Structures are given as structure tokens and as C-alpha cells.
């Protein structure tokens, strides 16, 4: 039996789809994606174009979220996945192969969390908040499938924002902004949020003060 036949036979046996490719140019695609995320984190409420480098990750993982994952996640960073992602074997295989990150079931153990169904996400307080001595050890939570026109606007103030800025993003749970306000109150502890859209991303570091706007 030739090697080709073997692999074909194995694919038929497991019925698995072939593994989706990673970045076409790992060095520069990751750099471009990082700079966009860095600018998003340094300037909350701004939307940065994420070069997804032609990624076609298995659903419910989105190209922008996959690009951010491949840019920031590796064997040093445990990852927590929400239910729809966790139940997809293809997603886990994709992340394991391309990043080597351990996938954990306890949100408090995660350095990064990927949330594909943000409207029903667990409370932000369930993630690692870091300690007063090491506030950098908290979880960074990445929300998938965001559209930046849906949902109520919130007003942002703080580092990275000249005066004030408005952020509109959704879907998020109804109590989400109250949780984000509570998250900011415990500064320097707290989680950082990245909102991954269809082609753009925005970020909300723990340092940003939030005032919900009347709809």
C-alpha cells in the first residue's frame, strides 16, 4: 500500500475534514494582525482591520478570531473555549495543531478565552482576574461574531482615549456592560476584552471607564 492510500484510508475511517491551513506567511501575517490588535488595545473604541491572511477555520471559529488566536496563542497559554467551540472537534484540532495550546475546561485557568456565542456567555468574573501583585496573569477574553452597529452604545473614557469615545458592539448579554464596569472598578486586576468582527476588531482593556448611554 502506498502512503497516499494509507492517508486516504485514514480520512475515510475517521470521517474528518482535512485540517484547515494556518497563515500563508506566518511571520508577516502574524505581525500585521498583532499590530492591529495592539492599536485596538492602545486606542479603545477604535476598529482595526485584521488581516486574516486567507484563513478558513472550521466553524464556529471565525477568520478574524482565528487570526488573533494564531498570533497570540501558543504552548505557553492555556485556552478556554465556550460550549459551541468546545463541542467542535475540528476547532480543537485546528487550535491544537496550529498553536499547540493546552485546551482547559476551567475558565480561571485560561490565559485566553474564545467565546463564539457571546449572547449566552458566562460572567466575566468567572475568568482569571489576576492578582494585585501580578495583575498581568488575568484572562484575555475574545468575543466572536461581533457587529459594530448592533446593541446599545457605551461611552468610554481613560488611557488611549483623547476625550471620550463611543463603542457599539453586539451581540453581548444584557448584563454585560454592568460586568465590564465592575471589571474596571477592580483595576489593576481584571480581564481584557477583544471584540472580533467580520473583518475588524476592537478592544476594551481593563483600564477603560464605561458609562452606558440611554438608548
Amino acid at each position, binding site marked *: 500500500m502506498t502512503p497516499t492510500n494509507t492517508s486516504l484510508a485514514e480520512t475515510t475511517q475517521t470521517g474528518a475534514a482535512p485540517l484547515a491551513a494556518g497563515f500563508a506567511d*506566518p*511571520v*508577516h501575517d*502574524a*505581525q*500585521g494582525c*498583532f*499590530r492591529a*490588535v*495592539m*492599536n485596538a*488595545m*492602545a*486606542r479603545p473604541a477604535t476598529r482595526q482591520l485584521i488581516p486574516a491572511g486567507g484563513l478558513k477555520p472550521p466553524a464556529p471559529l471565525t477568520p478574524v478570531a482565528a487570526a488573533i488566536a494564531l*498570533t*497570540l*496563542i*501558543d504552548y*505557553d*497559554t492555556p485556552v478556554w473555549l465556550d460550549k459551541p467551540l468546545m463541542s467542535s472537534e475540528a476547532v480543537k484540532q485546528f487550535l491544537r495543531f496550529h498553536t499547540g495550546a493546552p485546551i482547559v475546561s476551567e475558565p480561571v485557568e485560561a*490565559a485566553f478565552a474564545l467565546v463564539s456565542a457571546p449572547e449566552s456567555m458566562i460572567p466575566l468574573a468567572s475568568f482569571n482576574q489576576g*492578582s*494585585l*501583585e*501580578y*495583575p*498581568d496573569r488575568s484572562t*484575555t477574553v475574545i468575543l466572536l461574531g461581533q457587529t459594530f452597529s448592533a446593541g446599545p452604545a457605551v461611552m468610554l473614557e*481613560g*488611557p*488611549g*482615549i*483623547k476625550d471620550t469615545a463611543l463603542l457599539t458592539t453586539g451581540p453581548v448579554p444584557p448584563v454585560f456592560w454592568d460586568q465590564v464596569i465592575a471589571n474596571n472598578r477592580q*483595576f*489593576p486586576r481584571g480581564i*481584557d476584552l477583544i471584540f472580533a468582527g467580520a473583518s475588524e476588531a476592537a478592544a476594551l*482593556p*481593563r*483600564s477603560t471607564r464605561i458609562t452606558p448611554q440611554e438608548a
Partner: protein
Amino acid sequence: MNDTAQIYDQGEYNFAYLDEQTKRMIRRAILKGIAIPGYQVPFASREMPMPYGWGTGGVQVTAAILGQDDCLKMIDQGSDDTTNAVSLRGFFEKTAGIRTTYETSEATVIQTRHRIPEKPLTEDQVLVFQVPIPEPLRFLEPRETETRKMHALEDYGLMHVKLYEDIAKNGHIATTYAYPVKVNDRYVMDPSPTPKFDNPKIDRMAALQLYGAGREKRIYAIPPYTKVKSLDFEDYPFEVQTFDKPCGLCGAENVYLDEVILDDKGGRMFVCSDSDHCEERRADGHLGPMAASPEAGQFGGQNAQETAR
């Protein structure tokens, strides 16, 4: 075939020298630093092909953020053409093959040692600092466990005692560089050994500031438009250095000046520390009291032979 050619024969460096896992680790630290302005994020600093003290921290930060389209400016004490700046610029030209510049306004990434350019930076620029000792409390409290707790509890009394002792001893706050600042009303931070003249520029700067300390393995950051206050007292407010003469070459006032010794008879001149700023002003026709008149031509000019004798 010389040594360099032989190394090249074995293949090229990864873009900007560092391997991708190292870049990811540094990038994660940078994001945490931005999210917690002024907090020193520990990172797994690598050995670099240059000694500690030559900017290994700044180099690692620059290497992690640099892209193919970036234009890099490298300055040391304000100057583009001193040893440290020249060798680090050469390092990135060789390992990343990117465009470099002397012009502040042209650069997208500026790595600096001990100065901030005189020209205001824009939102599209990133300023990377080389930091020797990132911990502002280190000379007051040598134990890392203790300084970490002091930052956690926001207990900065010791730093105010130090500034008070300055006043008691000298009649004024005698700290002139690495002047401690409070970032976003929370963390006391060392702005690296820049002269305190530059502290007002850090406050609400439009550009993102990243600080890298290689030997001490710390990265910290100040996002754009962040409030940065130099520590002081109500009756002894923070002041910057002033100079009684303008720059000897370009006549600029309200800039930071370097002293240049001219001879062994006490001759000296004061010139802009920011060499690009000075050259730009001279190109615009500004002349200082000690600048050669434009008609004199090249340095040495007609009297070159005389000088040689």
C-alpha cells in the same frame, strides 16, 4: 569569503532576528502593559547579540512590533549618529531589511535611549524606550518581593520621602533624570533615564509609548493620551531644566541642550541634543551664535592647509 558572508551562506535570520515564539511572548506582554498603564510586566527576555546596557530590552520590543512597511528611527541621547544608535540601526537593517530614517516625522517606529524627540509625535508613531532599571523604587527598597507589594498596595510614601530629603538637603528636588511619574493616577513609573525636561512630553502624548528592560526582564507601556504626572509637592512644584542660552548652532530655545567641550581652556558650547531637530532648523535658515556662516563653505574651508600645519 569573510565571516559575515559565511553566516549569510547558512541562511538568513528570521525577520527582525527573534524567533516567532519569542515574538508572541513579547507581544502578549506588550498587550498586558498597554492594558495596565505603568505596570511592569515580567517577560522572558532573551539573550541578544549585544551586551546588556546596549538596549536589549528596547531591541526586543522593536523586533516584536516591527513590520516590513515600517520606517525605523534609532536615537541615542537625542542623536541619530552616536555609537548605540548606529549599531542598533544597522542591526535592524541587516536582520529585517526595513527602511530607516533620521527624520522624526518620517518614522513609524522610533527606538530611543534617554531622549524624546523635540518634535511632537503623532498618533501613527510608536516610541520604544530602552530602560536600564525599570523599578523606580529599587534604590529605595532592593527586595523585589517588597517593591511588588508596594505597587500592589499603591504604597508610594517612600518615594515622596526621597523627594522630600532632596529638598531638605539641597533646597530643591535634585532629581534631574529618571524623574518618577504617576501613570493614570495609579502606578509610579520610571520614565527611563530621560532628562526630566522630557517628562511633560510623556503626559497625554499622541503616540503609544513602550518601555523595554532586557536585563531586568520587564516591559511596560503608556497608551496614547494617558495622564502622566511627575511627582512633586504643592509648595515645591515640578519644574523642568531651563537654559540661559539658545542652541549654539540653530538658535533654538526651549529645547534640551548638550554641553560640548571645545578646548582645554574652558571653551564650550551648548547645542541641541536632538540632532535631527537641529539639522532641520538649520536647513530652514535658523542660525545660532556659534554656527559657521553659510558662506564659509565646508568645515575647514580654505584654511584647511593651515589647520593641518
